Every structure is written in structure tokens, then in C-alpha cells.
């Protein structure tokens, strides 16, 4: 069993597991941090951005000044933003049989894999994962396509040139494999390869392996996966949460008894407590608005935003914010809000019971009804008429490189009354802000990452007790910035095996058994024999049939009837097939009883001699000698087949067959 690690990003994994005869891709994460190296895509012409100076080498050589721009000491690529794809060379991706998706954030590279590698398999995901994943992709494509950019920079990627660039461009990995965003057509084609699954559904892959999604508690429809055969079990844990937010709680019990547990998608901010972050978020928001400032919340169109809106629903009246408009701007804002209300079966118990009333599970329905929350596809159109300040705007993209958020950063950045609050943990907020410097606006960092922290992980591992743990290398040492915090790493026994991008791990795994079915007719013919109390044995001689990776034992064929001499027999027909094995024998032969038995069967003049290891029984008349020892019997006789067979059968009476 092997694990091919195609992504180095611990929360956006992409691994391929070879298990029995199947090749299974676990998640398809797209590392978008690469976009931080690019200039933002403004929705309306931004004089500031277009007037940034070109970058030149220390020696004054300015041949890159068309591609690279400088802003407050940082250098950015002036081009269509590009993404860092999973490794595509490590394994032939056309051999991948299935892709298992654990949550909507971990499927963003799907079109690159399914459309451009010869992939012909099936993708499995839950319905909310697919629907919301589609919204995330639609938003991304929309953000990028609605601001066409003529320039596509490639000179800087040249290895010899990249060496000369300042950090972080110099250290960016695999820049030659970075790709532009896919198209909506590719998204649709990729999504059409998905088959919907439900939690605890058992999906058979080629009769060899069974995969099952389990609730992971992190997002709507998010799952962990069990990959198992009858005797081996691999658990794939990705993006799980034990906090009570909106999704169905995590199913931990089903992870028990794993041979290998692959652990990815832990919290990216292990030191921040999500609950206190939400509190800070609310108080900073209120403070800014009361002072007449605007609040910008860069966010994804689904996920934590539902929880934030729910908090605000409870908070705004008590904080005296009821007159402040809340805007949610995204090409998929409406869809996201609507979809969240129809997935009751995937929600936590509290929200599920609401639909029995029947009421919408999320209170943002009421915020919309009372006009406190308004949603728009973009800043153009209706929004420009309704726009009132001070206000709170939720919009994407959290990288601040594209989407409507770019517009609000440009619009509000110059005033210290305004605040931008970062809640999404995927991007470093300082890097995200770099192309907007100098900035007067207040910046608050309240990352809300509900995924497992290291304390929860160690508790989980103690509870489910996997034989081996496999995780990204980042989890086997403390974070670089907090190297003394030995508590911020995965701690388990035996120590976790770690992987890094482009590595192949041989998993410590020995398969010993396989399931086989004994047909009822054969089972009926078996004669079990109790060897020890509670343990019975039966020798089985049967015909093995194997089809579609399923093995079946059927009764052996009856010996063929002689054909009546119609055909001439060839000499070779008589030669027995040496592959028909006789059973092994066990036991020992008590000489006295054996001699008695011989006598009973008409043998006379029997002589018994003692030897060092046993006895010799002599049948003088027949010139036959039988050596009997503890673990062996040797019959030496003339070529009298009748006699030999008689003696053989008498000996076998004392022995057990296996």
C-alpha cells in the first residue's frame, strides 16, 4: 500500500492511495496562496495600481518592469493571477479510479485533474459539498473572468531570472507549473463526473474495496472517509471539527480500529480560540460602525459566514446596530443563502428540528426578510442605488487579489474610520494587505478556524487508537514561528509518519487475510472436528472461483465417469495430477492398539521390536515392516498394492487429517 503526496499544503491536501487493486485520490485541494504574489484585479480602473513603478534589478536593469511592479517595498507580478496545482508528474493521473472529496474547500483543483490528465474515473462527494463547491468555483471564475487582463507574465518564471528576484517571489515553488483559472465549461464538465453520496453510505469499488463518507463536523456536507476491505481499514481525516457550529457533528466512533489514519486539515491558527475570535469580531465591528466607519469582511460565500450572520442576528439589536445595513456581495450570494436553508439533513440537531416546525434552519432568512441583510451579485447594478454608509460588507475574495473586495479596499483604505476584519484563516493577512500599503484603514485579525486543534487531535487519537498515523510534515514539528511550543504538534505512539509534497510513502501495512465465500452446498459437506475446547477444524477441498475481485469456494467436481471406452484412452490420461494434494496428517499411533487392530483385520505372526525412537512392527509372512515413531510412520513392503492400501487405511484410522 502506497501513498503519493501531491500537495504540500496541509489543509488543501491531494494524496493518492494505492490500496489493493484500486487507485484512490483523496481530495483535490488547490493552493491559492500563490495569488498573493500577484497584483490585485480592480473592478474599476485604479490609478494607484496602474501607476505603480516597475521593478528593476539592483544594477538598474529594468527589463522586467512590465511584468513586476513595486508597492511599498514589495514586488508583485502584474498578470492574471495563477494557482499552484497539485503535483501531476508523480503518478499517472489517468490511472486514478476514484476521487473522494471531503469538503467544498478541498475540491477546487478538480477541473485541472479531471479535464487535463486523461482521468476517466468517478468522483464521490456529498450533495452540499458539490452544490457549495460549485458556488465557490463559479465565484472564482466570475471574479477572474469579469476583469479581463491582457497581460500574462511569464518572463519572471524563468529559473535564472527567478533567482534574482526578492523574496517571496524568489522562494516560490514550482512556478513553472502554476496555472490560470479554469473556465466555467471545465467546471461543469468536472462536476458532471461527481456521484452524490450520503453519510454512512457504503460504496463498493470493483468488489475489492469499500469506501464510506462520515460526517466530519466542519462544514455543510463535509466528510471524512473510511477506505476498507474486509480485513484492513484506512481512515482519511480531513477538515474536521468538534465545535458546535451549524454542521452535523463529527462521527468519531466509526474511525475506530483503523490500521492507518491519514490526518490532514487541522486548524491553521492553533493558538486562536474560535469563540473568542467571534466575540472580538462583533465588538470591533460595533465599535467601527458606532464611530461612523465602515466594516469590510473579506470572506468566502459559504461556511463561517453563516455562523457570523447568526451571531450578528443575536447581537445587532443589543448592540444598537439595527439601522446599519449589512451587505453580502458575491455572484453566488443569493444561491449560497438559499442553499444553506435546504440542507436540513446535513445540519446539527438544533437546526434540524427547526424544519419540523417548519422554519428555515438559519436565522439569516429573517435578516433578509426584515431587510437588515441585503445581498447583491456585484457592486454594479442595484447595489450602487441601495448603498448607504456606514455599513458592513461581506465579500470576497479573502486573498484580496480579486473580487469586489478589491474595490472596497481601494474605496475605504484611506480612512482610519474604516476597518477590515479578517476572519478567513487561509491567507496571511499581512501578505494580503501588502499591495494596498500604505493603508490608513484599521486592520483586525480575527481568524476563525473551527478545525481540530492539537489538543483535540491527541484526544481523538487516544479515543480511536489507529495503529499508524500519517500526516503532513508540518504537523510533526511545532510551527516555525513558535518553535518552543512542543504542544503545537501531533503527538502519538508510534510517532506519526510524515509526508511532504512529491513524496511517496510505503504505508506500514501487512495484508494477511481476504474474504472468501463458502457456498452452502460445500459448507454442508464439511465435517468439523473439535480439536481443542472451542476450536473446531474442517479440511476443505474445493474449487476456487474468482470474479470481479470476489472469491467463492464451490464443491469439487465429482470424478468424471469413465466414458465407456468409446474413445481410445491415451497412456497419459492415467497419470494422476500431482496438484491434487492429499491432506497433511497429525497425531501419533499407539503401538499396542495398532497391533490389536492388525490382528482384528486378520494379520497374524506380528512381531514388535523396540527401537531408540519408537517401534518396528514386522509382518513376517508378508515381508512387511512398519516403522512407527512419534511423528512418522514408514511402511516398507513388496509391490502388493492391495496389502499396502489395507495397511495405509489402518494407519490413517489413528491420524487426523488437515
Amino acid at each position, binding site marked *: 500500500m502506497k501513498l503519493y503526496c501531491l500537495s504540500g499544503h496541509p489543509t488543501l491536501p491531494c494524496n493518492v492511495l494505492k490500496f489493493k487493486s484500486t487507485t484512490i485520490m483523496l481530495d483535490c485541494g488547490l493552493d491559492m496562496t500563490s495569488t498573493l504574489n500577484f497584483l490585485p484585479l480592480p473592478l474599476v480602473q485604479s490609478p494607484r495600481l496602474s501607476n505603480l513603478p516597475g521593478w528593476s534589478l539592483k544594477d538598474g536593469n529594468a527589463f522586467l518592469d512590465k511584468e513586476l511592479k513595486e508597492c511599498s517595498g514589495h514586488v508583485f507580478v502584474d498578470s492574471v493571477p495563477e494557482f499552484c496545482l497539485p503535483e501531476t508528474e508523480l503518478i499517472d493521473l489517468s490511472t486514478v479510479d476514484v476521487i473522494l472529496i471531503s469538503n467544498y474547500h478541498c475540491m477546487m483543483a478538480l477541473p485541472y485533474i479531471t479535464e487535463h490528465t486523461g482521468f476517466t474515473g468517478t468522483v464521490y462527494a456529498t450533495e452540499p459539498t458539490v452544490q457549495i463547491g460549485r458556488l465557490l468555483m463559479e465565484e472564482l471564475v466570475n471574479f477572474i473572468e469579469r476583469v479581463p487582463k491582457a497581460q500574462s507574465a511569464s518572463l519572471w518564471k524563468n529559473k535564472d531570472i527567478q533567482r534574482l528576484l526578492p523574496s517571496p517571489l524568489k522562494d516560490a515553488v514550482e512556478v513553472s507549473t502554476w496555472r490560470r483559472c479554469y473556465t466555467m465549461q471545465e467546471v461543469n464538465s468536472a462536476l458532471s463526473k461527481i456521484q452524490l453520496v450520503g453519510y454512512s453510505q457504503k460504496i463498493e469499488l470493483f468488489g475489492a474495496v469499500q469506501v464510506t463518507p462520515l460526517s466530519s463536523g466542519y462544514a455543510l456536507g463535509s466528510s471524512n472517509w473510511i477506505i476498507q476491505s474486509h480485513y484492513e481499514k484506512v481512515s482519511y481525516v480531513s477538515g474536521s471539527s468538534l465545535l458546535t457550529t451549524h454542521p452535523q457533528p463529527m462521527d468519531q466512533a466509526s474511525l475506530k480500529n483503523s490500521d492507518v489514519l491519514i490526518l490532514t486539515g487541522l486548524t491553521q491558527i492553533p493558538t486562536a480560540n474560535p469563540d473568542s475570535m467571534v466575540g472580538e469580531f462583533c465588538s470591533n465591528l460595533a465599535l467601527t460602525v458606532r464611530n461612523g466607519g465602515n466594516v469590510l469582511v473579506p470572506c468566502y460565500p459559504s461556511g463561517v459566514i453563516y455562523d457570523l450572520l447568526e451571531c450578528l442576528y443575536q447581537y445587532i439589536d443589543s448592540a444598537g446596530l439595527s439601522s446599519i445595513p449589512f451587505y453580502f456581495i458575491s455572484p453566488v450570494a*443569493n444561491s449560497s443563502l438559499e442553499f444553506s436553508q*435546504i440542507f436540513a*439533513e446535513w445540519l446539527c440537531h438544533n437546526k434540524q428540528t427547526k424544519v419540523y416546525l417548519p422554519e428555515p434552519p438559519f436565522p439569516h432568512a429573517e435578516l433578509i426578510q426584515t431587510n437588515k441583510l441585503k445581498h447583491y451579485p456585484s457592486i454594479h447594478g442595484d447595489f450602487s442605488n441601495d448603498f448607504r454608509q456606514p455599513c458592513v460588507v461581506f465579500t470576497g475574495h479573502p486573498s484580496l487579489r480579486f473580487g469586489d473586495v478589491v474595490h472596497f479596499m481601494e474605496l475605504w483604505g484611506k480612512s482610519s474610520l474604516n476597518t477590515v476584519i479578517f476572519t478567513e484563516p487561509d491567507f496571511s493577512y499581512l501578505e494580503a494587505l501588502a499591495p494596498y500599503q500604505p493603508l490608513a484603514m484599521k486592520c483586525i485579525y480575527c481568524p476563525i478556524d473551527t478545525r481540530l486543534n492539537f489538543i483535540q487531535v491527541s484526544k481523538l487519537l487516544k479515543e480511536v487508537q489507529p495503529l499508524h498515523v500519517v500526516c503532513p510534515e508540518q504537523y510533526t514539528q511545532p510551527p516555525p514561528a513558535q518553535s518552543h511550543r512542543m504542544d503545537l504538534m501531533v503527538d502519538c505512539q508510534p510517532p506519526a509518519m510524515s509526508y511532504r509534497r512529491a513524496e511517496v510513502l510505503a504505508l506500514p501495512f501487512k495484508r494477511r487475510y481476504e474474504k472468501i*465465500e463458502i457456498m452452502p452446498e460445500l459448507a454442508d459437506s464439511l465435517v468439523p472436528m473439535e480439536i481443542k475446547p472451542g476450536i473446531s477444524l474442517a479440511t476443505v477441498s474445493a474449487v476456487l472461483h474468482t470474479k470481479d475481485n470476489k472469491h467463492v469456494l464451490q464443491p469439487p467436481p465429482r470424478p468424471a465417469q469413465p466414458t465407456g471406452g468409446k474413445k481410445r484412452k491415451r497412456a*497419459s490420461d*492415467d497419470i494422476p495430477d500431482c496438484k491434487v494434494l*492429499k491432506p497433511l496428517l497429525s497425531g501419533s499411533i499407539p503401538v499396542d492398539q495398532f497391533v490389536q487392530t492388525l490382528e482384528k483385520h486378520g494379520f497374524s505372526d506380528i512381531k514388535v521390536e523396540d527401537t531408540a525412537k519408537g517401534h518396528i512392527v514386522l509382518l513376517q509372512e508378508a515381508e512387511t515392516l512398519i516403522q512407527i515413531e512419534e511423528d512418522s510412520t514408514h511402511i516398507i513392503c513388496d509391490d502388493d498394492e492391495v496389502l499396502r492400501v489395507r495397511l495405509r487405511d489402518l494407519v490413517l484410522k489413528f491420524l487426523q487429517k488437515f
Partner: protein
Amino acid sequence: MPEIRVTPLGAGQDVGRSCILVSIAGKNVMLDCGMHMGFSDDRRFPDFSYITRSGRLTDFLDCVIISHFHLDHCGALPYFSEMVGYDGPIYMTQPTQAICPILLEDYRKIAVDKKGEANFFTSQMIKDCMKKVVAVHLHQTVQVDDELEIKAYYAGHVLGAAMFQIKVGSESVVYTGDYNMTPDRHLGAAWIDKCRPNLLITESTYATTIRDSKRCRERDFLKKVHETVERGGKVLIPVFALGRAQELCILLETFWERMDLKAPIYFSTGLTEKANHYYKLFIPWTNQKIRKTFVQRNMFEFKHIKAFDRAFADSPGPMVVFATPGMLHAGQSLQIFRKWAGNEKNMVIMPGYCVQGTVGHKILSGQRKLEMEGRQVLEVKMQVEYMSFSAHADAKGIMQLVGQAEPENVLLVHGEAKKMEFLKQKIEQEFRVNCYMPANGETVTLPTSPSIPVGISLGLLKREMAQGLLPDAKKPRLLHGTLIMKDSNFRLVSSEQALKELGLAEHQLRFTCRVHLHDTRKEQEMAMRVYSHLKSVLKDHCVQHLPDGSVTVESILVQAAAHSEDPGTKVLLVSWTYQDEELGSYLTSLLKKGLPQAS
């Protein structure tokens, strides 16, 4: 001998109070727990004394499964769980769990408040009963206990309707509940995979009907409604609050919009608005089209259909009214029917099946003078139309489902005996499987022969598979091993491994036969001749001449020795172990025939 036993307590050769007991591999499951619309005495509920006379329900049943929210499938549930007494799990889908208590409460109100029945279940009992419910998701495998698992499949029919697979080890039964094999305006079609159950229990409401295309029926329906409204008549459509009601509302809503009609459409109040709200929240259970477009337009927000008020029934002019219940056996639909029945301009359209004994059934069978309570006789002058919009599979659909699931046996319930007879023959002919149609209280017993799963050591399996690869992988391969049975753990291992695991020593049984041949040549030469002889006869075997002068065939040893007394005779010693018995014996007899003369 293992067997599957099925006993319908209701819905055996009948429509109504569906309730079927299934025993499979020692587990007892009750499928549905419905009431009968045609009776208001004891016969309205299934006869649970069938179980209780030998013990408590909870002890006997491992679980109860409810297929959908129609009362003939869940109406007896509070009586069963709270009054007879059952504390085990009750499984149903989430929409069923949401809607079922509302219909039960409605049913209770009509029975107790309107008809004044005593000793009926109470509202509290409905609540307590629903606490025992466990929600099941589509395709989720629910482990009822270590051995019994159930799985739900989409059934169409009504919101949240499901078919259930009940499985223990390799034995399984599929119960369809009510289902629809053609997608309609708001629901998708039933679907099941090729799960090859031992038994498929299917409804057979429309066992003999093959319906014309749905489009024709819809056009027909709209034409009749339209004509009546045009001539100023009133149209009554008795429906159940959830199910066909939404289907027909969507149909009329789009027609009104397209034709720009002004006549009012009403929906009897109470349940309806709430009902439509459920549909909005359970969008994933509707059909593809609604799921795709619900963000832009929720099909369950009706513009032309308004809430009905009792006073409207007497207002002049045309109108269309949807009223509950669907079989005209009580409630608002019956009240409106009595008001409108005398006018030949009006029309009542029965869009679904009516159980015997209901007013609906009577007028559909042509009765025009109805005896009402208090010996009053109601003369029906209004037009009576029947139009099958019930979302049940027709004969074609039932055959289609049998084909999909590929069961070993089929059992028919939820239909009329005569019609079942016809379908039974058809199924037996076409699929060559046995088909049963037990009456209520009658038990069908099916012997099963499950195969036994055991673990085979990979070493043994691979050894046998490798042998099988040569020369022909398709050739059946003979496997020999030892089955070790410890508690319920069965493992098949090689004999050597079995001996080793059990700490037993092998006992070697060896034979050495002396074959006397008259020959004067030297032993070495003798051995050489034996070698060439065996080599020529045993072409497929490994024959070797060893340096020490002996000859081996596979692991059988042949040595030539001088005779102690007769120099003209040589002795061939053939030695083999018990495992080589056949070959050893064969060699002895072969050598006994003598060696061919050297040419």
C-alpha cells in the same frame, strides 16, 4: 435451514393499513404501521395480537420501518407504540418524520373531535411516539444492531417516500412501500440498484393498469377543469394535503398563468400553507428541475392559489377548490361535496385511489344516490370524473422495478387480490421467479441458503491463484486448506499453518515399495533405464537423475538395488509420502510392468 418469513398484518390482498412482518436470519422487522380508511371499527388498525399473544412487541421486534407519511402507512403508529406498547427504534426519512406527526394529529382530530371516538390515541401519544423515531438518509447504511442493517432508496410517490433494503449477512429483503417509476412535476422517479435481494415486497395498487402517457392525462384534466369553469361551474378536487395536491397545484398554476385565467383557485386552509413550506425546505427530495431552479423560483410559492374560507363555498360563479381529505370520507372535502353535488354544472375530480367504503369509492363505482348520516339521501347530479394522478407505479413500472432489483422472489401487497393474480402470473412468466400474494395473517416461508463468509489467508489464496494462472486462468482451481472455527471467527488457512497455529506436529506417513525386476544389469545402468523410461512416459512431471544414482519424480524417490539372494533380480525401491499417494501408487504399478527393452 435458514428461511425468510413474511406475514402481512395489513395490505395483504388489500389496500389500506399496510403492515408487514418480516423475519430474516432471526431478526424481526415490521414494515409500515398504517390505518384503513374504509373502516372505523377495530379493523381500521392491524391486528397486533398476532405478535402480542406470544410476548411484548419490543421483545419481538428488532425495528419498525415507515416508508412514507400517508396514513395508510403510518396511521396506526401511535396506537401501536403507545397503546399496545413498543419502545424499540422506528426508522423513517426526515421529511416523513417532519410531516407524519401533523397528519396523525389531523387524523386524531377528525376521529375524536368530529366523530367523538373514545379510546383513541392522544396528542401527547403522537409526540411520545415520534420521540422513538430515528431519521434515515437516502443510501445511508443504518446499523440497527451488529447484524441487521437497513438502507433507504428514493421512491418518488410523495415527499420523503422511500423503499427499504433490510439486510442480515448475505440475506436481504427489499420493501418498496408506495413508489412511482415516472418522474412528475415535483418528484423524481423511484430508483434502486441491482441489489439482488432474496425477496422483493412490492405494492401492486395498479397491478393491471398500464397508464397512457402522463401528458395526455394532464391535458385531459386541464381541459375538464377549464370547460367547467368556462360554463360557470365549480370544480372540487378532493386531495390529501401533501402529495398529489402539490403536483396538481403546480399543474393548475402554470396553466392559469399561460391561459391568463381569472377564476379563483382555492386550497382548503390549515395544512396547506404549512405543507408548502415543508416542500420548500426539503427541496433535495424533489425532482431535478425544481432542485436546479429553486434559487430563481421556488415552485411551491403559488401566485394564483389562495387559501379557502368556508364561506366561499356558497359564493356564486366558477371556482376550483382543492379540499382534504382525498377519499371524501370526512372533513371539508365531504362538506363541499354535499353542497355542490346537486348541480349538474359542477364537477368533482377524484385524482387518486379510493378505498372501499368511502364516499369517493361509491361515486366512482357509479352510485348516484348516497345514504348520508341521519338517513338523509344525497342525490349526485354533478359530474364525477376519475383521473389517476396517484403516484403509484403501474404494471409496467412494477415490472421495471423487478427488473432493476433482480430479486430471487417477489411478494405482492397493497393491491386487490384479482389484480394481483394477473400481475403474479406476469412476473412469474417474465422473470422466472416465484411470486407470492399472501392474505392478511397468512405466512409465506422462503428457504434461503446463504453462503458463509470466511477469511482466507492471503498466502493460501495467492498460492492457489498462482497455480491457476497456468495454463488457463478460467479453469477452476482446486484449493485445499483447513478451516479453523473459533467462536464466530472462521479462517481458512493452509494445512501447514493450521498445524502450526494449533501447536500440532505433522505426522509423516511414508511408503516404500519393493518392485522386483528380472534383470542382470548393474544397478547404475538399471537406474539410467528407469530414468529414461519415466522421462518418456511422464512428460509433464519433473523427472531427475541425481548424482547418487537415484531417480526422482517430483518428490518420489526411486532407487535400484541388488537382490540379496538372486543376482539375476534387481529391486527398485519406490518411496513416497502420503501426500503423493496417487503418483507413488501409479509409479509402482508402472514399474511393475517392467522396463522397455533398450532399442
